[in-house]
């Protein structure tokens, strides 16, 4: 067994906890999870069956934790793990799974399959089986603080341009502000209108807030590739700047996995509670709306629908807030057939969007979203995740669909009273 393989197997062994034990002990191999996975439904390839993607971990569990497995292993008949296994599964877990957790919602025995796949990724990463794009993203995140390689200067250049264009003031490094708003790099370079929008909204609502130039990145390449050590390092940077700026609450921006990571996973990765609260920008805007501090005027009259980012809705629990906000300004808001916690993924979550190799597959599985949109005949698609937004735009470009994609925050900012 090579050193890399040994590292991977050892890491997989260390991942077996009470949940893993009960999950594998209860799996009946019924295959229901396949019917909830867009990578299976859109390709028909049974290898994309969610529970099949957990095979490396199941093998380790079988060999180490079951009677038959132990007997077989002691007789030299156990299911051995090879580098080829890990190599084959690299494509399944990194290209063919967006960690959307839809499979976890339908398993008859309640297995959180996404949890298992996350653990498989830990083994893959330890053995060095990680797609180049993700590996490079994590290296840039560690070196520059941004998976795109952006720096404090990049942020300042973007905010200065926005201040001139919109006549607004964007606070940076303001110690003692109530809220620290994190960003994803794509909100600095691709969707900077988000920064302008929150600035206008917070100004109108009288919210004390700031950005941090020292570390602004909310995304976490460590979580996406399955490396808890890198994930913890990136989270610690957020904790450090939030502590230095003495903020009470951290705002997770329009980014799915960033929210799940900092809101739900960070305390468990670090092994301690965070010294500040975390809210998603949708939660905060809805709170301001409920308090009467976010007043809007006029309406966005186009027929539109909302794409639930998996990590914000299904895995994050922010389900009603975007709908409250949309109902305030968009009279022609319609829901997709399968929505909220049972939405279909854009196809690019879980690091798939950073993995160039996965692009043809990602665009193929976008067909499910295309069908959902075709049913509704909408002209605008709204979402609350910049990664989803890019994936949706690319999918619609590929399919010649004439639907514009916007963030909720921008729509609200455009209708401030």
């Amino acid at each position, binding site marked *: 067994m090579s050193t890399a393989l040994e590292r991977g197997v050892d890491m997989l062994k260390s991942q077996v906890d009470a949940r893993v034990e009960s999950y594998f002990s209860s799996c009946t*191999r019924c295959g229901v999870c396949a019917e909830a996975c867009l990578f299976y439904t859109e390709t028909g390839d049974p290898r994309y069956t969610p529970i099949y993607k957990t095979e490396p971990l199941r093998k380790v569990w079988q060999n180490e934790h079951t009677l038959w497995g132990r007997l077989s292993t002691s007789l030299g008949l156990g299911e051995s793990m090879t580098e080829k296994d890990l190599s084959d599964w690299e494509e399944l877990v990194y290209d063919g799974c967006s960690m959307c957790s839809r499979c976890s919602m339908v398993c008859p025995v309640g297995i959180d399959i996404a949890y298992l796949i996350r653990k498989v990724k830990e083994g893959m990463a330890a053995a060095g089986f990680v797609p180049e794009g993700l590996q490079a993203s994590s290296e840039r995140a560690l070196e520059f603080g941004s998976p795109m390689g952006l720096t404090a200067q990049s942020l300042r250049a973007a905010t200065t341009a926005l201040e001139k264009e919109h006549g607004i003031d964007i606070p940076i490094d303001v110690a003692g502000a109530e809220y620290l708003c994190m960003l994803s790099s794509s909100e600095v370079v691709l969707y900077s209108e988000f920064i302008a929008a929150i600035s206008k909204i917070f100004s109108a609502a009288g919210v004390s807030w700031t950005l941090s130039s020292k570390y602004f990145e909310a995304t976490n390449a460590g979580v996406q590739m399955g490396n808890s050590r890198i994930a913890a390092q990136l989270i610690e940077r957020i904790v450090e700047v939030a502590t230095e700026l003495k903020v009470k609450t951290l705002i997770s921006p329009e980014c799915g996995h960033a929210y799940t990571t900092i809101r739900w996973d960070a305390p468990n990765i670090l092994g301690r509670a965070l010294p500040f609260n975390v809210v998603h920008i949708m939660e905060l805007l809805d709170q301001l709306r409920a308090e009467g501090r976010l007043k809007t005027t006029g309406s966005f009259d186009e027929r539109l629908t909302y794409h639930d980012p998996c990590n914000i809705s*299904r895995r994050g629990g922010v389900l009603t807030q975007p709908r409250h906000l949309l109902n305030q300004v968009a009279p022609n808001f319609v829901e997709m057939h399968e929505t909220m916690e049972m939405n279909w993924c854009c196809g690019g979550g879980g690091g798939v969007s950073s993995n160039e190799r996965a692009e043809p597959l990602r665009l193929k599985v976008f067909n499910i979203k295309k069908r959902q949109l075709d049913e509704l005949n909408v002209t605008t698609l709204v979402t609350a995740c910049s990664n989803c937004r890019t994936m949706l735009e690319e999918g619609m470009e590929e399919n010649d669909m004439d639907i514009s994609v916007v963030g909720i925050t921008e729509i609200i900012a455009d209708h401030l009273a």
Partner: protein
Amino acid sequence: MLEQLVDGIFWDIALVVFFAGIAWRIVDVIRRPGRNDLAESRNSGISGAIMANIRGFFPRREISPRIRIHVIAGYMFHLGLFILLILAAPHVKFIEEHITGFGWTAMPYGVFVITAMISFAGLILLWIHRLLNPVSQLISRRGDHVATTLVFFVMLTGCMALAESSTGLRLFHRFTVELLMIYFPFSALMHAIMFVPSRAYTGSLFGRRGVKL
């Protein structure tokens, strides 16, 4: 001689292995590292765990059309087997004589036959699906087929022994039951018990986040 073995020592061994094996599997889960969720919860994890265990019996509306065979055949088999287990006349008599000391009204013979047919049909449908469906083919393991075969023979011999006209048939049925009991704790049949903590873990996680499983 054979009767003494099957009704005596084999039964005792099967009982011990069955209960000790299940206890061992449950302890194996409990003793593993599992830490409390340190993230501040939005809703109750306990109610999430309970609700997930209840809701898990009903497939979600969004997925139902794609899993009709699983749902229909699954309910036919599991419900049928459960009814046969507690309401078949010989079982009621056995439970009264060996376990509880009291019995209850058994199902009429005709109802037994219909229930057995439904349950058998469910099991066979699930098995055919496992053998022919590309997804099930890929993910099924040898143990799944062994478990299905054992259950099939337990049900078949049970039907054959129902009239209790032959000691041989009764012993044959009891022997297959004993084999099943010995195999149960070390196989996928454990899902009959482990689905409870499994649903609870996931239900708690999603429940704390405010998501209904």
